[in-house]
């Protein structure tokens, strides 16, 4: 029940931000829409969302966004370098890495973060294993691969969600 209420509040605040109006008819329409969306998507809403209400987790989660942006910027400079270089310095391949995160919501964010960061793209997720397409396979050792691809995000997401 607490979860439903949190979901309802998130959806309703999204509605207010999108309509940007506090007229009574807009708010009423928002209440009705948010109510039905809450009912329709009850199985899609991640269970662990409420964990973010804890202030320590929330702060770490908020810090994660600029951290991710920094790596997105690096990823773009990396793409620019590879695309503009006339010799096309790539050595692509699909590697398999194991994550130690257990939480599904955290895994989703980790997989999306991998896709947005330099040279890596999540192709398939199978339980604890990620299959990652890597544009420049620089090592054949699974431990080093793990550290290079997951290390920087995994530590942080574990502190936020576990």
């Amino acid at each position: 029940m607490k979860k439903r209420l949190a979901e309802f509040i998130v959806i309703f605040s999204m509605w207010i931000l999108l309509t940007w109006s506090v007229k009574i008819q807009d708010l009423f329409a928002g209440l009705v829409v948010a109510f039905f969306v809450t009912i329709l998507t009850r199985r899609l809403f991640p269970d662990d969302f409420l964990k973010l209400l804890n202030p320590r987790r929330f702060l770490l989660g908020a810090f994660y966004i600029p951290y991710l942006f920094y790596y997105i910027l690096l990823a773009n400079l990396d793409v620019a370098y590879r695309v503009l270089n006339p010799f096309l310095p790539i050595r692509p391949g699909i590697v398999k890495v194991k994550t130690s995160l257990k939480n599904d919501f955290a895994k989703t964010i980790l997989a999306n973060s991998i896709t947005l960061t330099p040279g890596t793209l999540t192709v398939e997720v199978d339980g604890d294993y990620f299959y990652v397409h890597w544009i420049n396979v620089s090592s054949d050792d699974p431990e080093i691969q793990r550290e290079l691809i997951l290390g920087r995000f995994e530590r942080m997401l574990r502190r936020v969600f576990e």
Partner: protein
Amino acid sequence: MSNSFAVAFIIIGVTFDLLGCLGLIRLPDIYNRLQAATKSVTLGTCAILFGVALEFGIINSGGIKALICILFVMFTSPTAAHALARGSHIRGFKLWEESVVDKLKKDREK
């Protein structure tokens, strides 16, 4: 003043989008192309939207919508890239001949 910042962000965004398109043409197979497309287009589009938000003023109806769009783009674009890559691999699109390793194919054949 805020206007020139806005224009600067839009120019940066367009530049990265352009690099992403160049990547689509230059890189050899679908997986590498997706890499270039996803990363550059995400940052490029976010930068353009942020420029738009600055131009409108952040705290009003236009600016807030642009900021929310940044959030949606950041969630949906990697998910879409993941879905395309996964679909292509299941359907059997080959990696580039000079790729060094394909663990996923090996595990699927088991």
